[in-house]
């Protein structure tokens, strides 16, 4: 069967059934964040050609934009290209911005369109259906817990319980940085973009939901799965535990 080029926004969503089975009753409709205070002023300055205002948002927003672009395209270089193209579109299009969302949400919307188009041109495909195994199932190896029927069923088995990483883990060395960077690159696309925006980029949950068109519950599922995998990689590094 040929691999379909899925609409990436649709691929962003875990089905309602999957979501509801995990988080009954917490599937909330995404509300785009309201225009930030100062947005009107910022827009006015950009329209008036204020170079400092433009330089400020380019520097402040481009790192998160690269993460988002990288979700749609196949390489870092290609993601940079999409971000540059987006800023050029913003320069030309700021007069047409109607202020129905925050400026930032609008810029990310422009970026998504540009990067998605670029991804299609590169024939980058989503290899799995929107509901895939990587977004379901336990995040910790079930063999580490006592089996059903045991007096302490579901508790950590003594020999498999997490152990302290020791003082070494307190300081982030270059080896750990390299390990985390490599582990991020290996995450499934949706998990990677969510954890990059939340934990690397420090964006608030609501903004990540708006940018990626995710429900808050789905955003947390993807974030948790990504965090659990990276924790496991660090555990392997600090304690020498075999990776499953």
């Amino acid at each position: 069967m040929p691999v379909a080029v899925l609409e990436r926004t649709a691929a962003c969503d875990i089905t309602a059934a999957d979501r509801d089975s995990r988080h009954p009753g917490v599937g909330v409709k995404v509300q785009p964040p309201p225009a930030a205070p100062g947005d009107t002023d910022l827009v006015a300055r950009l329209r008036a050609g204020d170079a400092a205002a433009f330089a400020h948002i380019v520097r402040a927003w481009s790192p998160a934009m690269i993460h988002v672009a990288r979700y749609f395209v196949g390489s870092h270089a290609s993601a940079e290209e999409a971000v540059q193209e987006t800023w050029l579109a913003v320069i030309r299009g700021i007069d047409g911005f109607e202020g129905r969302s925050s400026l930032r949400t609008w810029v990310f919307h422009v970026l998504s369109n540009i990067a998605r188009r670029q991804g299609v041109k590169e024939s980058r495909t989503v290899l799995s259906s929107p509901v895939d195994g990587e977004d379901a199932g336990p995040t910790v190896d079930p063999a580490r817990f006592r089996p059903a029927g045991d007096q302490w069923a579901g508790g950590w088995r003594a020999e498999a319980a997490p152990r302290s990483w020791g003082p070494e883990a307190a300081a982030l060395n270059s080896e750990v940085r390299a390990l985390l960077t490599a582990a991020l690159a290996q995450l499934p696309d949706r998990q990677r973009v969510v954890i990059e925006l939340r934990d690397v980029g420090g964006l608030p949950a609501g903004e990540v939901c708006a940018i990626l068109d995710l429900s808050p519950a789905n955003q947390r599922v993807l974030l948790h799965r990504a965090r659990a995998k990276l924790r496991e990689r660090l555990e392997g590094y600090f304690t020498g535990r075999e990776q499953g």
Partner: protein
Amino acid sequence: MTIEPLPCVDVVELLTDYLEGALDPATSARIDAHLAQCPPCVTYLEQLRTTVNDLGSLPAQTLSDSAIAELEAAFGDFHRPPAS
């Protein structure tokens, strides 16, 4: 009032929701009760936090200086008043 215990295997799946404050108060209380008497799950939670902190200190990838300079020049060109 007794709180129905939550096994470790379930606790580890709820910790991001717990950290995000996304759990209902009853479930959150069950996690608190579990953590109060389960050192391995406390260790797991701490390690999850360490992971998040470590990610936050990774260097940000951004546009190259030359790309930013090009954009600033493009912005200047766009807003330069037409010569009269």
